[in-house]
């Protein structure tokens, strides 16, 4: 009986932590992202400020000019507004299981491009790694590791 209990527990744990990492992205028809230079990352109300900063910092590291804030509109007009959704799970420690980023037109807010990285526990990356992966997929898909 005790062995059966252990086996069932192990199966449940495996079911929870396994799975394959995946990356999906898309671009609106006729979109040219090379015309975008300035970005404003709009903070989610539930974000304590860490994820929005990670995304904005990554854009700056990629050579763009990025700022972030809680308002829906940037204080100064930008070429693009960036929105995101992050999902977290617990497995020994908290980790980001999914990060989705949308690149929007600075005026109309229409989505120009979007990408999503999904990484279960055993293939987890830091939020910085997730942001790098997603933004590279959007702007330079050939360079993604």
């Amino acid at each position, binding site marked *: 009986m005790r062995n*059966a*209990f252990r086996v069932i527990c192990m199966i449940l744990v495996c079911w929870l932590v396994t799975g394959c990492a995946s990356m999906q992205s*898309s671009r609106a028809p006729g979109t040219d992202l090379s015309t975008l230079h300035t970005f404003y990352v709009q903070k989610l109300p539930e974000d304590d400020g860490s994820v929005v900063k990670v995304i904005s910092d990554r854009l700056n590291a990629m050579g763009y000019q990025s700022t972030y804030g809680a308002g829906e509109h940037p204080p100064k007009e930008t070429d693009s507004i960036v929105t995101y959704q992050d999902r977290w799970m617990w497995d020994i420690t908290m980790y980001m299981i999914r990060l989705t980023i949308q690149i929007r037109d600075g005026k109309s807010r229409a989505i120009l491009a*979007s990408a999503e990285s999904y990484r279960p526990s055993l293939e987890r990356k830091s939020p910085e790694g997730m942001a790098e992966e997603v933004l590279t997929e959007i702007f330079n898909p050939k360079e993604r590791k």
Partner: protein
Amino acid sequence: MRAHLRLIGALAAAAVITGCAAPSQPGAMIAAPAGVHHSRESVSVQVSGGKETSSVRTSQISDKDFAQALRESIEKAGLFAQTAEAPRGTYRLEAYIGELTQPFIGFDMTVTMEVTYTLTDTRSQQVVLKKPISATHTATTGDSVIGVKRLQLANEAAARKNIEQAITEMSKLELD
């Protein structure tokens, strides 16, 4: 120990009855807005940005299924006299699914779908409408007790509301 086994048995049973994710169905995404302006022209419909459903992941909305629902909604509402295969059609409607935000788990499942619609007059190549439309729907345990089914229902309703808003916006143009 027996209590533990019962709990694990219940969890395993729950995992089994929740089943595999199914794609959102075109028939359930068809909108029927009232008071729509009728154009005598034809329109072709193209969709991008959708995702295929994997049985081990969550229910998604594919390009093909959304295009079918959009075409059938336009025909049903009488917005255009007929829908045509691209590149034919006096107008070309491009729908880009930029966002489909879904929860992982939960009793109430809220899905937000954002689509950018671009309507172009193919005779002049002039864009007559470009508009991002966002629609949200929450499915509850009253709709279905099965999680994957609840998410599918939320997807379909969000898509239906999105199409309804898009048809209303295009109707306002009062195209000949």
